[in-house]
């Protein structure tokens, strides 16, 4: 089994170089995989992945299509359970608990580890109801509390000023970028610890992308964020740490600065400079 990779220890684990002094302050580990293997039928999609995700930073997963980055992302809240042919070995820990353990409540796990997808997927309901619905599912009934959380979440997602006068209009009338921020508001309304984002800006125009990126930088003050992106510059702009995957393997995991200015592995260098992938 690969030793567990953390960016600061990456040089002596994944990247095989000499140990370096930490470039970021020590943080608590929020999520961790140990010897994680995932098969889709006979296809080995993740190969012995061991890595740690620290709290309240943005960690980016990069790599060519099919490298396993989205598959790994979905492991953290057991979204892969929905696919029949999937077999998982090894461990995934969230807050120190094995999420495949017998006592794990998947609903509770997904409340703790929220997710935002590539395509925004608001419910065909009002803006207000998109957030209130998630709260009511959790048993929140008090109208005042619901209104307050709706406002806080929309403010947290930098959407409040744009929608405060039309909260009861259909969410489907919002622009693509606004819909994606509404999905982020919906995710943060239930106060998760982690937000997983699978290419959250890939379907947006540059202005909407910039807003989502700015929002991610604000959200990391309160949440741990893991983002999958194909956009190298986006990873460089918004993430603190970056993990590069290729053919199901974790090739290199380090501070974003190191990955994008002086990666240790030639494969990483070739990928981030666009020479392959």
């Amino acid at each position, binding site marked *: 089994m690969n030793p567990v990779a953390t960016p600061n220890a990456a040089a002596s684990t994944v990247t095989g170089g000499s140990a370096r002094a930490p470039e970021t302050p020590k943080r608590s580990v929020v999520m961790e995989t140990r010897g994680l293997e995932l098969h889709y039928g006979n296809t080995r999609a993740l190969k012995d992945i061991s890595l740690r995700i620290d709290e309240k930073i943005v960690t980016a997963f990069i790599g060519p299509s099919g490298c396993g980055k989205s598959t790994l992302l979905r492991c953290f809240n057991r979204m892969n359970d929905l696919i029949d042919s999937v077999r998982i070995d090894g461990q995934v820990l969230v807050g120190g608990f094995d999420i495949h353990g017998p006592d794990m409540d998947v609903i509770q796990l997904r409340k703790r580890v929220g997710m935002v997808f590539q395509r925004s997927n608001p419910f065909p309901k009002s803006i207000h109801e998109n957030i209130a619905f998630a709260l009511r599912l959790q048993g929140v009934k008090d109208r005042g509390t619901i209104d307050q959380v709706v406002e806080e979440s929309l403010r947290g997602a930098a959407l409040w000023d744009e929608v405060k006068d039309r909260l009861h209009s259909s969410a489907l009338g919002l622009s693509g970028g606004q819909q994606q921020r509404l999905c982020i508001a919906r995710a943060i309304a239930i106060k998760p610890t982690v937000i997983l984002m699978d290419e959250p800006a890939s379907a947006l125009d540059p202005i909407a992308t*910039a807003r989502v990126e*700015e929002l991610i*930088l604000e959200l990391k003050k309160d949440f741990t964020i893991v983002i999958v992106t194909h956009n190298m*510059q986006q990873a*460089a*702009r918004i993430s603190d740490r970056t993990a590069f995957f290729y053919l199901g393997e974790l090739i290199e995991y380090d501070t974003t*600065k190191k990955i*994008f*200015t002086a990666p240790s592995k030639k494969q990483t260098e070739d990928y981030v400079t666009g020479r392959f992938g």
Partner: protein
Amino acid sequence: MTHHEQELSDLKQRLLSMGSRAELAVAQAVEALVQRDADLAREVKEGDAAIDQLEIEIDDQAVLLLSHAPLAGDLRLVLVIMRASQNLERIADEACKIANRARDLAEEPPLKVPVDISRMARLVLDMLKQVLDAFVRADIEQARMIIPLDKEVDALHKQYGESLVASMTRDPACIQRGLHYLTVIKRLERIADHAKNIAEEVVFMREAQDIRHAGKLSATPGEA
């Protein structure tokens, strides 16, 4: 202000901090020379490490910003800051060389020289101050006005050099000290060159027009 704007603003602020330190180093080096103050000369040399450190930090921050793929004006700003910080570091090095000569001259008997070092230094310091102002305000008019001042400094350097050589020829006993002064005026002339370089960068930053080597390059054959 977005995070990106904040990062650019921090980088700019760091360059200005470097600029004011470099300006102070030049002013103090000349003061040490004029006042024969060896302690002040040492202070200038000691302060150089902080300026070198700022150059490294600016480069480091700028490289990181370049990895974010800034475009257009933001891209030019980062490039200009990198080039300007290199010029400021060299200005500070020139100030150290002046401080070295000030320290050596302070140990020698005073020499009455036929040159007005303070006048030349005022002109150079004025260029430096103005170019930092032009950078802060992205004022290309002011930047363009700085460029011809370099010719005045060059003329003064030539005139003072000839006077110093003549005086050394007349009195060989003052050759050693005269050579120190020749070095000082050459260093001041180089500082003016660096200030001019930064002025040209301000024009590039604002107008995306590269005016470096304008006189020389306009004489080369045009594009085919």
